[in-house]
């Protein structure tokens, strides 16, 4: 069971890296986009692409944390104690970034917007870097079991620092690749080229960084290195191949499958790490997946919970992304938010109503094109998804209350 939960944890981390990481990468490109005028177009694109989805993507992090501390409390407590400083810095980045991002859209004065924008962008570097150093520290075996004090070595080794840089690079790379698609969807050829170039550059840098990190592991944790070139080698190869393939796509201008390849590359590296480390949780200590603290029932409950999450969240996320992809989700304007044409008797909810010309939309010409030339299969599924989600939640709530009544408020507590 512990193995299953370990795999789930790694899967959630992967999802966070692929989705949340790209949001951080967006901040990176925002940071380097240049002055007000020059940087305006890419910033607008980044803004529009991230605003509706960053909170959802962020939730994978919360899930990873919760699974970590529930299933492997001993390892969790040790990491949180030994690596407290870099984790605090990562948290600082999360706060600043979220705040900058949330307020920027509403702030009116240019100077305020600049300050908030800079906060958002700068802090987008903080979080991936310091999370990277912690992961690097774990991989290098720098987190002691039963840690009782913060240790500098847990995150300042060569492996740690390189992993930090690698994370920043990977986030930027993913973001650039995704943004190419966003630009293409808006028929903005200029931005497409803009981000293609950046994706190429960051792809090369990230590839180089991953090699450097591997080399650093050779001296900091030879066992892990051996396994990475041994049992986990197929995954490393997949990662390399996906990275090179994506680069080839970028050079030849092929779009289809590019995002998948890029995400696959990042995922393969993470899973390579997981497989190489298995079954150890904190290398250099005796803490493994099975002895890190949680009893069987907790692990089973986590697996069940994750099943429910997949059942409920997956269709909802797909709905969100499909609406976002078809540019159904747009920000407000001075009048609060503007309504869709209403009431529209006889239209299927969400079913891709062609936007009426009279609609007071900003940039409505562009969006009409974007949404009317597709048959919105995803849109028609929306009410069904909603219904299923509601039904499952309702069933869960009623089952839970019924069971609770049967179990009663007994506080069974045995101490030996």
């Amino acid at each position, binding site marked *: 069971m512990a193995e299953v939960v370990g795999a789930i944890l790694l899967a959630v981390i992967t999802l966070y890296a692929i989705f949340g990481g790209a949001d951080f990468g967006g901040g990176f490109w925002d940071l380097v986009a240049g002055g007000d*005028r020059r*940087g305006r177009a890419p*910033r*607008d694109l980044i*803004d529009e692409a991230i605003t*509706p989805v960053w*909170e*959802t993507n962020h*939730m994978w992090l*919360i899930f990873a*944390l919760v699974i970590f*501390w*529930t299933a492997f*409390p*001993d390892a969790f*407590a040790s*990491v*949180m*104690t030994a690596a407290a400083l870099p984790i*605090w810095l990562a948290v600082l980045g*999360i*706060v600043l970034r*979220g705040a900058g991002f*949330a307020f*920027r859209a509403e*702030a009116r004065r*240019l100077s305020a917007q600049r300050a908030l924008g800079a906060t958002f962008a700068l802090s987008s570097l903080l979080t991936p870097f310091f999370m990277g150093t912690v992961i690097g520290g774990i991989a290098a075996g720098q987190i002691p079991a039963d840690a*009782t004090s*913060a240790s500098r070595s847990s995150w300042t080794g060569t492996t740690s620092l390189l992993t930090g840089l690698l994370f920043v690079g990977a986030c930027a790379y993913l973001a650039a690749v995704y943004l190419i698609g966003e630009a293409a969807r808006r028929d903005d050829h200029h931005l497409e080229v803009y981000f293609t170039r950046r994706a190429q550059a960051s792809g090369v840098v990230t590839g180089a960084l991953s090699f450097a990190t591997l080399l650093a592991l050779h001296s900091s944790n030879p066992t892990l290195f051996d396994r990475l070139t041994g049992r986990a080698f197929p995954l490393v190869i997949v990662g390399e191949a996906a990275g090179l393939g994506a680069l080839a796509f970028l050079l030849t201008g092929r779009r289809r499958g590019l995002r998948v390849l890029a995400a696959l590359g990042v995922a393969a590296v993470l899973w390579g790490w997981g497989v190489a480390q298995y079954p150890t949780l904190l290398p250099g200590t005796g803490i493994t997946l099975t002895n890190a*603290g949680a*009893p*069987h*029932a*907790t692990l089973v409950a986590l697996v069940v*919970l994750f099943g429910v999450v997949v059942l409920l*969240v997956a269709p909802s996320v797909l709905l969100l992304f499909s*609406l976002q992809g078809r540019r*159904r*989700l747009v920000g*407000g*304007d*001075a*009048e*609060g938010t503007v309504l*869709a*044409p*209403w009431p*529209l008797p006889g239209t299927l*909810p969400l079913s891709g109503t062609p936007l009426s010309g009279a609609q*007071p*939309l*900003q940039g409505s010409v562009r969006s009409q094109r974007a949404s009317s030339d597709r048959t919105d299969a995803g849109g028609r599924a929306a*009410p069904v998804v*909603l219904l299923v989600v509601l039904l499952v939640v309702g069933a869960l*709530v009623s089952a839970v209350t019924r069971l609770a009544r049967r*179990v009663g408020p*007994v*506080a*069974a507590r045995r101490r*030996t």
Partner: protein
Amino acid sequence: MVAAAAGAGSEVLPARVQMATTLGFHIILACMGIAFPTVVLVAEFIGRRRSDETALLLARRWSQAMGVLVAVGAITGTVLSFEMGLLWPGLMRQYGAVLGLPFGVEGLFFFLEAIFTAIYLYGWRRLPGWAHFWTGVPIAVSGIGGAMSVVAVNSWMNQPGGFTEQAGRIVAVNPWQVFFNHAAAYEMPHMIIAAYMVTGFMVASVYAVGILRGRRNRYHYTGFAIPFVLAAALTPFQLLVGDTAARSIASDQPVKFASMEYVARTGSDVPEYIGGIFVNGRVYGGLKIPGMDSLLVGFSTDTRVVGWESVPAAERPPAPWLLHLAFNAMVGLGTLLLLTGLWALVVWWRHRRLPRQRLFWLLAVVGGPAAIAAMESGWVVTEVGRQPWVVYGLLTTADAATTSGGVVGTLSIIVALYAVLGAATIVILRTMARRWRSSETQQPTVPYGPPPGPPSQPLSKVGT
């Protein structure tokens, strides 16, 4: 264990202050996250059902404010998640496998909440009619589910159960009993109603200010009435649940109750104090009602109430006066809110309109802050009253706290950061309100924000 608590390590106090600061801040936004979607949905429902453009306009504007509040709620909540490990590794090491499960359920609900919030907020313009309304319903449902899960953790810390511990390790867990522990029965409804009260009275407050300033129009009256009615209708239930809570605590956590009510020695015919400060073994000031406390606990003055002297000093919560005054404040403010609601009800009954007296509107303005103050006081009672335990009777706060050092530093940064965050949130909300009022439509040309477009049409045209 208890000895360790007495000679509390240097990190314990700053860690507690930091936890209290961050939680006290998050909880306000959490209330908005739990109840604001419902308020907005009610407005949207009225708007669509009755083709009431004022209500619809309110719903749209409120959801814009909700967007900001939810984002700040997500950020501060994330800080809390990290703090569980960064500040309380001892708690997580020992009981992470138990209290982690409700947190997992919380994660599920907040996930749904985040997704549908995004769809709802950004879907106003391009999702047609009722479909848009329905995308809001899961937000309201998952807000309640999320609140239940987090409060499950907190109530479990007050009444731990549902697990077996052997030689210091958790060997078995019963998730149902963890989630629906003994204290959950009152904490969950009490918190959720509190969230609706805070949100309702707070939003109503804003419009009451406008009305007092002379903006007596349909827009302001509607903006006041929708949240106010919702909150005022729940207030009596809140007082009932609170009363139940107090009685449960008298039997389950007697020392906490003794500190709340200034009961030093166990006995019957115990007096009730309203106000008053306890120092050097005496109560100064305040109103003393003989026998009342026993009466409230067991419906008879003969009821025995346990005093705090039944346990050694090291196992009592610090500063009974803080608990007592916080408890009094919560009950007092709750009663004030109840009276405000009753006033409106009576006038409605007689005249089918809202009261005209200035005093009523002043009360309505105070209502929002009062609800927040009541809620924060309630948390002080719960959390400080649990001291010196973090998990009641099992693990002391001192044993749970981090030993990695530097908490004074993080505390200072957090306080400064949250001050700015809070101020910025208020400034942004006020900017929005001002913008709505002047109904200006031209966006400045800026690097951040959507491209300038044609000014939006007046609503009346959109609706046709």
